[in-house]
């Protein structure tokens, strides 16, 4: 079997759905969303807590409710779906190869592709904790799926390593389901999680957050019996003599997310070493013309609302690409992130193709108080925005206007940096 579509979205999470909806609304009549799971909604299906959609719907929804609103719009016509179908290859000329139990191997020729595969959790192997590899060690997201979707409690006496939001959410969830969470250990001197989650998931239940601490040993051969936690110095090295043993049967790891980009690599898409997602321009197009990216596959987001907004931009531009409606390129101006700002998305802007207003999203590398976010057009400072606090766990954004760039012909670089007050 061989099929052809104007636009194929890889992934049916919030990013894939929003991209498909906006492409349809922009007039594209041939769109396919491919999802490996048996249902749409992506990671939101297991995020049963509330806190989604404040920006989009002005109310606090749970993950499944937020997903359902987008599913409803996507299912209202004009978009085809393949569920239970895994994309195994995307080529540079946009031939999409998929496998499904129902149809076997299928190739689909697309004119444009939106990469929306989301992210995965950093695996435990990457952490190098000495000791055996007994049962009872789960990533926080796996535990979340087990408890919320399968209805299965992975353990009773729990230690959590890493204070990412998923770990914090699971500390509360498992406590309410009858487990005892002894502590959350965080290597850094600050938490990567939202303040709200620290207060409502840990403080509410008296669960200690140990900053500058890490797991130095896991005990138990068949099943986790205890973990040893030690304080770390300024360079992240355990301080001898500070070890404390916590008896437990379960260790959850919430140590970060990585964009899922195997497919992007096979298509020849250039990845950023900082975001681990594709390098994109002002229309969220990768270095391969007609291949776009949005959502957690592009860079890890903390708010799904921004995922939906970003993906809508990618979908709209994919539709314009297919229709041949994109403005002629005049040349990409690189965005440089420096002095505390780790990266920007997009990484370059062509002023002729940018929207009237373009959102540049970025993260900072540390916790900073009383700084300015400054934007320079070459060596002229054009924005100077005061922030009383900046933290790596919270994505920031700055809007650039097309008119601002148009007023600066010959512009060579746009620099984003933090400056002291």
């Amino acid at each position: 079997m061989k099929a052809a579509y104007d636009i194929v979205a890889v992934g049916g999470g919030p990013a894939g759905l929003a991209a498909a909806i906006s492409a349809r609304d922009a007039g594209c009549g041939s769109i396919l969303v491919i999802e490996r799971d048996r249902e749409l909604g992506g990671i939101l299906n297991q995020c049963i807590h509330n806190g989604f959609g404040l920006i989009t719907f002005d109310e606090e929804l749970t993950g499944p409710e937020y997903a359902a609103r987008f599913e409803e719009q996507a299912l209202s016509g004009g978009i085809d779906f393949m569920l239970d179908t895994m994309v195994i290859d995307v080529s540079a000329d946009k031939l999409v190869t998929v496998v499904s139990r129902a149809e076997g191997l299928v190739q689909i020729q697309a004119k444009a592709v939106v990469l929306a595969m989301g992210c995965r959790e950093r695996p435990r192997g990457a952490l190098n904790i000495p000791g055996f590899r007994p049962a009872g060690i789960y990533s926080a997201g796996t535990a979340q799926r087990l408890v919320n979707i399968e209805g299965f409690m992975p353990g009773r006496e729990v230690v959590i390593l890493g204070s990412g939001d998923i770990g914090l959410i699971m500390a509360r969830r498992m406590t309410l389901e009858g487990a005892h969470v002894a502590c959350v250990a965080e290597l850094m001197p600050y938490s990567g999680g939202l303040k709200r989650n620290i207060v409502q998931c840990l403080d509410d239940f008296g669960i200690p957050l140990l900053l500058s601490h890490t797991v130095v040993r896991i005990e138990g051969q068949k099943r986790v019996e205890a973990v040893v936690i030690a304080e770390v110095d300024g360079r992240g090295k355990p301080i001898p003599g500070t070890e404390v043993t916590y008896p437990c049967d379960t260790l959850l790891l919430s140590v970060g997310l990585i964009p899922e980009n195997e497919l992007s690599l096979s298509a020849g898409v250039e990845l950023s070493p900082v975001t681990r997602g594709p390098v994109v321009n002002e229309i969220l197009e990768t270095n391969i013309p007609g291949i776009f990216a949005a959502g957690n596959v592009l860079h890890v987001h903390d708010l799904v609302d921004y995922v939906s907004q970003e993906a809508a931009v990618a979908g709209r531009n994919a539709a314009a690409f297919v229709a041949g409606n994109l403005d002629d390129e005049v040349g990409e101006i690189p965005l440089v992130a420096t002095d505390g700002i780790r990266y920007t998305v997009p990484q370059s802007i062509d002023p002729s193709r940018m929207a009237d207003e373009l959102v540049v999203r970025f993260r900072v590398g540390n916790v900073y108080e009383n700084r300015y976010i400054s934007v320079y057009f070459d060596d002229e400072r054009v924005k100077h925005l005061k922030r009383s606090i900046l933290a790596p766990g919270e994505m920031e954004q700055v809007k650039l206007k097309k008119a601002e760039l148009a007023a600066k012909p010959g512009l060579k670089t746009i620099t984003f940096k933090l400056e002291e007050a």
Partner: protein
Amino acid sequence: MEQIHLTCIRCPRGCQLEVAVEDGAVVSVAGNACKRGETYAKTEAVNPVRVVTSSVPVTGNPAHHMVSVKTKGDVPKAKVRAVVDALKGLTVESPVAIGDVVLADAAGTGVDIIATRNV
């Protein structure tokens, strides 16, 4: 006079708030770097509330073991555990739609528990 210690959750700064409470009313808030901290402290110190979310077993749909649920509105923080306990042993039957009441008046809070997923 009672002194309550809180962390403001309205922004990543996380100001440490010292709230003085007398006869169930906030008389002073200190430690907040902005006005939002004071607003937060005024309810959180005397009437903290939460939305409770959970999931309960569902029967009659081979594709799903569980359906996610939430309290339809805020419940007092002190009642969170009672609300979760009230869900123990509850099983719902498919089909269930977003917004369907799966348990009325959970733990005497006057707040219903509704499904957050179509199963």
